[in-house]
């Protein structure tokens, strides 16, 4: 089921959480709402769920084209997973998952046997069969999160909403669980929105990423689109490491018509892995720079180099074999060349 939100505004006292936000999630997609804390992403998710309502007279929320803005959460058929699980502590895993079925009116409520069957099927789906009799306090964080997911799925929601689903887990579990979520989504194809502040997480598993900042949507696109063609400086800086340099600093490195027109104020954005280093002695183009620091632990080597002309420090990421071939040490001279850079006044590519 597709989800649309039009012109959503929400204020909490003096704080504007959402300032005229539009969102369009096609049916069956896995979409990430990505942004720093306070950007309004959780509020937007809660408004879609019906746990929060947009300011009067502002926007509408549509599910599959139907206006659900005034429907309470319980009647929207959404599955909501909370960051801190919000499991019912006094109920076993089984009863937690069965809760949504047990609270139904007598006519719609499945029989006990049917409830039991569905709960066990869901627990199997989240790989927790066998723990049905446990209490939440006896489970690990990752297990609790999967119970919360099974509980949300028990009511056969048309939409699945996850609020920072992996935020409270440690790094390794988080990685496992997010891959699992991707596979899981590929199996059940339920329209899913998840909120995260972790760009790596969003880029890795989402079909589409919605980047939010200060109560607004900055950019919407596939992970590759938003990473390769960020719409503005905020998105560029939010998604991964970036060097922000004054354009003229590298004028020697890459002179092209149009670049000069940018003027002295123009800034360019370069990812560390889009910079090439050549030995200074080799001559050729490229700005001269001094190597200040080499950090060679991990799959890539990170170098901090300082441009001779402007004294600007630049972070460069090259493979370790490239570093070995280059054969530089701290305080050696090198030349910088940019493979790709962005300016937000004009495309800037080399």
């Amino acid at each position, binding site marked *: 089921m597709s989800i649309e939100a039009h012109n959503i505004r929400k204020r909490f006292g003096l704080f504007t959480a959402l300032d005229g936000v539009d969102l369009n999630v096609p049916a069956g997609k896995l979409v990430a709402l990505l942004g720093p804390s306070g950007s309004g992403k959780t509020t937007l998710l809660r408004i879609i*769920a*019906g*746990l929060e309502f947009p300011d009067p007279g502002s926007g509408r929320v549509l599910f599959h084209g139907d206006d659900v803005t005034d429907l*309470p*959460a*319980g*009647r*929207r058929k*959404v*599955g*909501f997973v*909370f960051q*801190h699980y*919000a*499991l*019912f*502590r*006094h*109920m*076993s895993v089984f009863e937690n998952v069965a*809760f*949504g079925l047990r*609270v*139904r009116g007598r006519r719609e409520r499945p029989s006990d046997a049917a409830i039991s069957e569905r709960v066990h099927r869901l627990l199997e789906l989240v790989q927790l069969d*066998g*723990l049905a009799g446990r*209490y939440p*306090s*006896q*489970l*690990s964080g*990752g*297990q609790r999160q999967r119970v*919360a997911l099974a*509980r*949300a799925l*028990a*009511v056969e929601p048309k939409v699945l909403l996850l609020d920072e689903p992996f935020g409270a887990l440690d790094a390794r*579990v988080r990685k496992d669980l997010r891959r699992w979520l991707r596979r899981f989504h590929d199996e059940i194809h339920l329209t899913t929105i998840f909120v995260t502040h972790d760009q790596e997480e969003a880029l890795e598993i989402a079909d589409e990423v919605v980047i939010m900042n200060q109560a607004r949507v900055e950019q919407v696109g596939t992970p590759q689109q938003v990473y390769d063609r960020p719409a503005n400086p905020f998105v560029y800086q939010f998604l991964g490491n970036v060097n922000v340099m004054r354009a003229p600093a590298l004028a020697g490195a890459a002179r092209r018509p149009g670049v000069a027109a940018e003027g002295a104020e123009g800034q360019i954005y370069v990812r560390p892995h889009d910079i090439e280093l050549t030995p200074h002695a080799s001559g050729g183009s490229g700005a001269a720079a001094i190597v200040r620091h080499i950090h060679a632990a991990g799959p890539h080597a990170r170098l901090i180099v300082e441009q001779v002309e402007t004294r600007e420090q630049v972070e460069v990421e090259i493979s370790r074999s490239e570093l070995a071939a280059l054969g530089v040490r701290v305080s050696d001279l090198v030349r910088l060349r940019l493979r790709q850079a962005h300016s937000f006044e004009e495309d800037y590519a080399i």
Partner: protein
Amino acid sequence: MASTFEPIPARGPRADSVTRFPVMTAARSSRSILPGFGLSLGFTLAYLGLIVLVPLSAAFLKTAGMSAHDFLAAVGSSRVMAAYRLSFGASLAAASVNVVFGFLVAWVLVRYPFPGKRLVDALVDLPFALPTAVAGIALTSLYASNGWIGRWLAPLGVKVAFTWAGVFVALTFIGLPFVVRTVQPVLQELEPEIEEAAATLGASRWQAVSRILLPELAPSLLTGFALAFARALGEYGSVVFIAGNMPMKTEIVPLLIITKLEQYDYRGATAIAVVMLVSSFLLLLLINLLQKWSRRSLAI
């Protein structure tokens, strides 16, 4: 520790986040993260012995000198039995009412912002601080047939002061803070998310309260009930003014004990007290067991 070299158990069925305090280990091993076990337990026992056990055992010692016949005669008379019925009955009734309304007060204080909230919050503690005699006199003058409230009840045929109902009113008054103050912090700690989760799963408001909130609050409600009940059992000051103290009708056990003392019937007084002690201890024990059972799954 040897377990350092054992493989770390895999996440999964064995993972267990319940904190278990190593009480027994701490008692035995010389090194512990929680040192001072021996000292603190010794102090606790000595203190409880001095403050609680010694005075209470004096009552038992005194009655130990009585013959079984004398003992039964002292506690079994119809006047004493009537007093027991009144004390336990009115205390139970008052504690039950306090659980309901104390929960409501705590709910309002935690969940809703309103002007004067701090004042209301402070007002709850007043029955703690007020000399009970003052409370008793105030209640009596309110509920007497010419009092502010009593004069409206009298035409309806309802008499509060100097009846069973008066005892009940006084015991309700002094018991309220116990329930409010035990439920309030637990309610405050409860994540609002669990109610939201219930709502997204289609639960009505009533279902969220009855199936989610009340079970979570049950241990603290029981604690509040037990405290209010225990306090009501021992209450003397406020009741003697409003009860009228008619033998067989509105005479509470503590008053009966005082009466016996004034008649120099020390053994009779302690015999009544011993029965009171044992039965309240059993009741409180029962409530504690209930509470343990209700928080079994909460793992707190």
